[in-house]
Structure formats: C-alpha cells, structure tokens
C-alpha cells in the first residue's frame, strides 16, 4: 500500500506554470518545496482543501499558486498578512495561509506581520527564513548572518553598517496575542519531521479557531549560498541554528494550556435592508414645515473664540433652514484654529440651490467677541446686520451703513444660569430681527439639536430673553447711505 505520496492539495499537473508541468520552479535542494509538501499534506489531512485560501508572497515562492489546488491570491511584497486580514473579515470559515520569505516578512512587510500578529488574526503564517533574498539573486536579508557574503554585503554583513540579524520568533512572541510561535529547521531528516509537526499544529490551531500561529522555518537556499544542497543543510545546522535557536517560543493553543490574550470576534451579518434604511433615515426627528417664501439669501458669518459655540450655533441655524424646507450650507473654519484660537462658521440659507458656500460678504455677522467684530465688520454688505455680544466687546459700531444689535449675550446667559449659551442668545436675537428662522421653529429645533437634553429648558429661556431684549431695543436703520465695502 502507498504510505507517502504527493498530497492531493497539489495540482496533478502544474498547468499555470507552463513548461515542465510536473516539477516545481525551485532550484534543486531548495527548502521551499519541502515546506510546500508539509503544508499540502496537512491540508489533506484536515480535509480543508475547498476552504483554504493560500496567500503567496513576493519572493521565490511567488508562484506557490502553480502548485496548491486551493483558492489562491498573490500579494504585494510583504503585505500578505494585511491581505489575509481582509479575507479573514469576509470569510469566517476560510482557512487562510500566509506564506512569506524573510525579505518579505522581516524586511518590507515588518509592520503588516507585527500588527496581524498583535490583532491575533486567526490565520497561519509560514515564514521561510533562508537568510537571503533568493528571488532577486542573493542580496542581504534582515536575517542574513553577520559576516555572511551576499551581493549587497560583498565583504560580509557588518553589524555596524547593517545591524544584526532579526529574530522574528523572538519579536512575535513578545506580543501577547499569538497562540503558537515555533522555529524549526530543515537541516536533516529528523528536523524535517519536527517541522512537519509544527506545520500541522499551526494549521490545526486555525481550523479550531484558536488564533494566530507562526512557524519560522530555517530553510536552505543552496544556489545563493553557493553550496551543494547537502552542504547547504550542513551550513544551516552549523551557522543558522546557533543564530536562530530552533525551539518552541509559545504554545498556548494546546488543550489545557494557559488562556491567551486573544478575544474571539463574533461573526456578524448585515442587518436587513429595511432596518438599515430606517436607521439611516430616522436620525433626525426634525420635521419640515414649508414656509411662505420670499426670504432673501442669508449669508451669515458667526465668529468668536473656539469653545464659544460658534460652530454649533451655525449648525442650529442650518437645521432651522432645513426645517423650513430651505437650502443651507454650513462651512467651518477648522483644524488647529479650533484648539483655543478663533473659530468661525459660514452659513448660507437660500430658497435657491447654493453655489459657493464661502461667505465673503455676509449679510449678517454674529460676533461673539471683540476680535471677531474687528475682523469681519468691514466685510458685511451695505444694509447688512451685525449682532454682537456687547458683554465682550467694549466698543461701538464703526460703520454707518449697516444695522447693529449690541446685546449683552454673555451677561444674559449668565443671569439665566448658563453662560455657555451666549451663542443661542445671539442667534435668537438675529432670528427676532431678521424674521428668519421663525422663533417657533427655532424653539422646536433646539431640543433636537442639543446633545445634552437637560439643557433644553435653559436654552429656550435664552431664546425668550433675546426676543424680549430685541423688542425693548429695536434695531435702528442704517444711519448713512450704503457705502462701498472696504
């Protein structure tokens, strides 16, 4: 009877390869083929060929998809762990293998492997460490030994210039999430059998949903080491193994072992369409009331210190506009300015669709502090309006061709009991003067726009106080004829 034969997880003939459709493209004595065989055998043994997806790297094993009769995806250099992560999120039951060389995994792809390991992705990584860039003809790898000659270290790798070889098992096992980390060797027959057990365990872990498994395989590259296949194995045992200890670094996947840091992720399925539509459509409860038309375009600049509620006053205004069935844009100044400096919001409300959202010539300026009125007073259109917080502005109007409402908003807000609502006092004053938004709409929108519901009453009191103030202090018409701006 047949005891050992070519595993079924290999294609019968390697059609994708083109010429020589029975043999691999690897050099005689290369370790890659040996590792492939162990993986293929394990896939057979666990009966997971149909649901296996093999991520091949860039390196000599770039063509692993010639051989594995599984789903295959060829990844950019070093990125296979990220690709595997993406697949993992789509298919909970796929068996995902990331197969990588030392240039791929320990060089260009260091970030991707570390983070996939740290997330404890339930994938299996086979890391073929041959201490060289095989595919590109034998340049230094991150795992090249000190003194080892390569095309890019012609006089031998120097720690002073190139740093020391990287131990990836050491790095990966410094993280808490991986459940299985082992370094094995292809130095001789018995080592190969040990490697085979590690390969099986690493795959079994994933199938059992245990978590991230990482097997580093010290593997010969006779061609670039410039040794015969057998001398390469001898060199591997004598030189690579002392630098890269062959041992198990972590094995918490076996039954009874210590619980690991990996938290299992529940599979999730999208909610039904109607629920989604309902969720997305019902976030705002503000109802639309179509208003009698005739409102001229309102271009409002609201300005003050960051933290005075400049941006939120603008949002409140824009929400009122929607509620009246009007078009609206809200454009913030944002970024570093928000952190302590000045802030301003530009709001346009119109019956027509709005072109530029920039407010360079406001019809109304709402100024919450002194610097704001200084900055924008000159830009208000002739005949326009300025509503200013006289509590924080110690000067009077500078122009005769516009209207002013100087209202002690901070004081009013403070007297009511919440100084932070001066912005609402100013906005309500503007509403009372401009006739937009209608005060009843403003009152109706406030409860929806406020995140802190316990402040609703206070804010409604702000509106009342502002309306009363405007009634007591009617805004005078411009004292002079309109003049050109600036």
């Amino acid at each position, binding site marked *: 009877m047949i005891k050992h034969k070519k595993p079924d997880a290999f294609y019968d003939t390697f059609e994708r390869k083109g010429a020589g459709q029975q043999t691999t493209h690897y050099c005689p004595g290369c370790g890659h083929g040996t590792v492939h065989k162990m993986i*293929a055998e394990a896939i057979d043994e666990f009966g997971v060929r149909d649901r296996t997806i093999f991520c091949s790297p860039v390196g000599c094993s770039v063509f692993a998809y010639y051989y594995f009769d599984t789903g295959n995806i060829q990844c950019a250099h070093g990125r296979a762990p990220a690709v595997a992560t993406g697949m993992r999120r789509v298919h909970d039951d796929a068996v995902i293998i990331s197969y990588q060389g030392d240039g791929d995994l320990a060089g260009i792809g260091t970030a991707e492997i570390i983070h996939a390991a740290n997330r404890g992705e339930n994938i299996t990584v086979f890391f073929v460490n041959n201490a060289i860039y095989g595919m590109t003809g034998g340049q230094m790898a991150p795992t090249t030994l000190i003194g080892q000659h390569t095309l890019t270290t012609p006089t031998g790798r120097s720690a002073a210039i190139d740093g020391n070889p990287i131990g990836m098992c050491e790095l990966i096992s410094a993280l808490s999430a991986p459940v299985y980390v082992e370094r094995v060797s292809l130095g001789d027959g018995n080592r190969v059998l040990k490697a085979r057990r590690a390969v099986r365990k690493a795959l079994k872990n994933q199938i059992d949903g245990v978590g991230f498994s990482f097997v580093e395989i010290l593997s010969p590259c006779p061609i670039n080491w410039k040794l015969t296949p057998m001398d390469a194995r001898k060199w591997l045992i004598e030189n690579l193994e002392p630098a890269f200890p062959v041992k198990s670094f972590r094995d918490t996947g076996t039954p009874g072992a210590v619980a690991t840091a990996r938290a299992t992720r529940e599979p999730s399925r999208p909610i039904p369409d109607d629920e989604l539509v309902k969720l997305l459509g019902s976030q705002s409860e503000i109802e639309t009331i179509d208003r009698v038309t005739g409102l001229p375009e309102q271009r409002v600049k609201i300005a003050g210190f960051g933290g005075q509620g400049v941006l939120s006053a603008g949002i409140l205004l824009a929400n009122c506009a929607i509620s009246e069935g009007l078009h609206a844009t809200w454009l913030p100044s944002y970024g570093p300015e928000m952190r302590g400096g000045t802030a301003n919001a530009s709001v346009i409300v119109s019956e027509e669709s709005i072109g530029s959202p920039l407010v360079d010539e406001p019809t109304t300026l709402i100024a919450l502090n002194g610097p704001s009125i200084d900055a924008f007073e000159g830009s208000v259109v002739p005949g326009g309006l300025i509503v200013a917080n006289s509590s924080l502005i110690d000067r009077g109007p500078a122009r005769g061709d516009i209207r002013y409402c100087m209202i002690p908003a901070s004081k009013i807000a403070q007297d009511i009991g919440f100084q932070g609502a001066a912005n609402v006092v100013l906005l309500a004053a503007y509403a009372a003067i401009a006739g937009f938004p209608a005060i009843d709409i403003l009152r109706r929108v406030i409860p929806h726009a406020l995140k802190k519901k316990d402040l609703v009453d206070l804010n409604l009191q702000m509106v009342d106080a502002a309306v009363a103030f405007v009634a007591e202090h009617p805004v005078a018409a411009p004292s002079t004829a309109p003049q050109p701006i600036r």
Partner: protein
Amino acid sequence: MASAPSNTNVRNFVRIDSCLCKGCKVCVETCPKHCLVIGSKMNQLGYQYARFEKETCTACGLCFYSCPEPGAITVYRNEPADREDV
C-alpha cells in the same frame, strides 16, 4: 520504530519518478538505511536522478518529506514482494 518487514512475501519500497527528480541528493543522504543512490543516467531536465536500490527500506518517509519535489518520491509499504512495476 519502523522496520523492514520480516515476512518475505511483502516488502517496502520507494518509487522515484525519474522525470521529476532534480538529483539534489537530499533523499540519498537522508535515508537512514542507505536505500537510495544517485544513478549515472540523466533525465529530460538534465539531472542525474536518484534510484531506489536496497531492500532494507522501512517506509519511514524521511526521504519523502525531505525531498523538495512534490511528486518525485512515493513510499510503498508491505507491497507484494513479486510486484514488478517499480
């Protein structure tokens, strides 16, 4: 520990597909029973391929696992001793 069959009607053997062997000699050096040798003939790929020679094979599989080629080596156990298609 695997051992060669004591029953003389059956035997273990290894079949090496001469077309798929790259003559790397890894199997030859790996076999603890020295059952394999590199022959003098060359295959289509230009490699002097390995051959199974001795009957002391224990079907341990070391040669199979060490060989880098997927289909070069097949290991048989307890096959009829008179089987000829090897």
